[in-house]
């Protein structure tokens, strides 16, 4: 357990990076420090391995005040993973992973066994990767090495400073999943800094939300979502959600428009497509209906799988011959409530959203509505009730 008591950090220029923090980091858990940039989350983490010295208060690990320990020896007992991976380019993968064990003067065989074991742990074949250099690995592989390097000397505490933020989204998700999987076996005390709420919600046992050098709320993710302490917490959660939906920042109280909910890239086809092509496209996109748009993206009609199969035998026909006109559309910017009423009244499974000149901009489907609702409830915003009743 790591306990912060009245910890302060003030820089020489008078800037207070950390203002009187009290915090208990529980053993065997992933504690995520999150907040906007400059909130002091990284500083808080670096206080733990004394990369930064506090100007007041005390930090205890397992009851021992870390100020009384030799910083270099302390750091060898704490795993450390940084954002820019920080692998040593002049050392092989095996040398990189074995850095801390070698600093701790383990014997050679033991280090080698440990390195192979750790490589296996993240699914990298030791015989293939042991003697490679970091530059020969992909970003995701490099950060896997970064993570196992932190585990090498089997420390109880591991600090991770935005470890996955420089990776592409797919590698990031993979590494998050792997971290959660590893943690189930290893039960380390992990302090994880991030600015990504989705990442925090995915991996955290406890989320510590910080702002301006202070802790705003520290609690289980579930409780933070259900009982956000104040408007800052709400907006931090809400803002992230809206950003991930790819829309402009709007206050959560505002009723959403169809543009927030629609699928922006639904399956569309040009009128000149043949019927077999249409079937293939539906198969690939896993849909039963295609929207037919011309090259200016003007909505021409809609084709369902039944329309196509009815006339499939006629090889010369195109989707333009079998399509049916779109009866109902809503203009971009319509409120979601109106669109839902329309869908409900006309028993529509989907509803096209059009811009000026009947230009097709997106599609509201039942799935997209459900996803939107799920997001709203997940964010704990109480704005959801207002239009929940519309759907029921």
């Amino acid at each position: 357990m790591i306990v912060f008591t009245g910890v302060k950090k003030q820089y020489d220029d008078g800037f207070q990076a950390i203002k009187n923090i009290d915090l208990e980091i529980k053993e065997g858990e992933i504690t995520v420090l999150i907040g906007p940039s400059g909130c002091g989350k990284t500083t808080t983490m670096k206080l733990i391995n004394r990369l930064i010295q506090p100007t007041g208060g005390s930090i205890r690990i397992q009851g021992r005040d870390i100020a009384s320990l030799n910083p270099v020896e302390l750091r060898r007992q704490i795993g450390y993973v940084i954002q820019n991976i920080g692998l040593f380019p002049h050392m092989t993968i095996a040398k990189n992973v074995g850095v801390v064990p070698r600093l701790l003067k383990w014997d050679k065989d033991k280090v080698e066994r440990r390195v192979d074991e750790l490589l296996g742990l993240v699914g990298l074949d030791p015989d293939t990767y042991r003697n490679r250099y970091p530059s020969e690995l992909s970003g995701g592989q490099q950060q896997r090495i970064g993570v196992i390097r932190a585990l090498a000397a089997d420390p109880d505490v591991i600090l991770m400073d935005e470890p996955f933020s420089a990776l592409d989204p797919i590698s990031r998700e993979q590494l998050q999943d792997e971290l959660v999987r590893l943690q189930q076996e290893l039960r380390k005390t992990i302090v994880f800094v991030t600015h990504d709420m989705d990442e925090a919600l995915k991996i955290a046992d406890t989320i510590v939300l910080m702002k301006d050098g202070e802790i705003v709320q520290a609690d289980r993710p579930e409780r933070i979502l259900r009982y956000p302490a104040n408007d800052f917490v709400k907006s931090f959660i809400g803002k992230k959600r809206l950003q991930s939906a790819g829309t402009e920042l709007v206050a959560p109280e505002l009723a959403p428009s169809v543009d927030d909910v629609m699928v922006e890239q639904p399956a569309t086809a040009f009128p000149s497509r043949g019927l077999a092509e249409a079937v293939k496209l539906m198969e690939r996109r896993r849909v039963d209906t295609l929207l037919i748009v011309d090259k200016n993206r003007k909505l021409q009609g809609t084709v369902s799988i039944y329309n196509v199969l009815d006339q499939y035998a006629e090889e010369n026909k195109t989707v333009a011959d079998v399509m049916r006109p779109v009866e109902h559309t809503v203009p971009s910017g319509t409120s979601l409530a109106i669109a839902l009423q329309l869908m409900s009244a006309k028993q529509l499974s989907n509803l096209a959203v059009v811009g000026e000149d009947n230009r097709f901009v997106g599609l509201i489907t039942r799935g997209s509505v459900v996803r939107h609702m799920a997001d709203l409830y997940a964010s704990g915003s109480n704005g959801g009730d207002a239009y929940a009743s519309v759907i029921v």
Partner: protein
Amino acid sequence: MLLLSSEFLKDFDVFIRERYPDLLQATGQHLILSGVALALGVLVAVPAGMLLAHYPAKWARTGAFGVANIFQTIPSLALLALLIPLFGIGTKPAILALFLYSLMPILRNTYTGFRSVDPAILESARGMGYGAAQRLMRIQFPLAFPYIMSGIRVTTVYIISWATLATLIGAGGLGQLIVSGIGVNKEELVVAGAAAAIVLALLADGVLGGIERRVARRAHPKAASK
């Protein structure tokens, strides 16, 4: 034209056979002059460059580079002349002058090499429990090594060519052959001295390059294979 005439080559051949011991002795002197100056330069400039990179106090950096720059810009003949009233003539002042010339390129390359190490790498080394000296020797030095070596190689070539002037203050070396050749109007002497200096410079550069590649292959496998 003179060089290509067979008569000259025949004379040159005879000359070399005759003066072989002199040529060898001059080459030996030249090697000692350059080698000692270079070794001193490396011993002083590499640690100085490391220190400057480690303590980024601006006045220290400006001062050190300023002094080294000044030595670099004094014409070599003038520097040798200036040293006569201070240190007399002979091998010592010649080595001192060459040493002063070697400082700047080695210092600057060492400094640049150490500064070029990614701060994220140093941060991660610190966070994992490398002490300050371990960081310097196990992380920064190997990563800065190619820069340091390129500084040393450039300097070596310069020093070997400048060492031909050392004869003017009585330090001997291959310059002596050239200067006396000019004095007695004997082309064979001039050509032999100059050619030996060129070969020496090329050989030294080749040897250092070999060392650099051997070490770099271990340190930067990608960069070396390019």
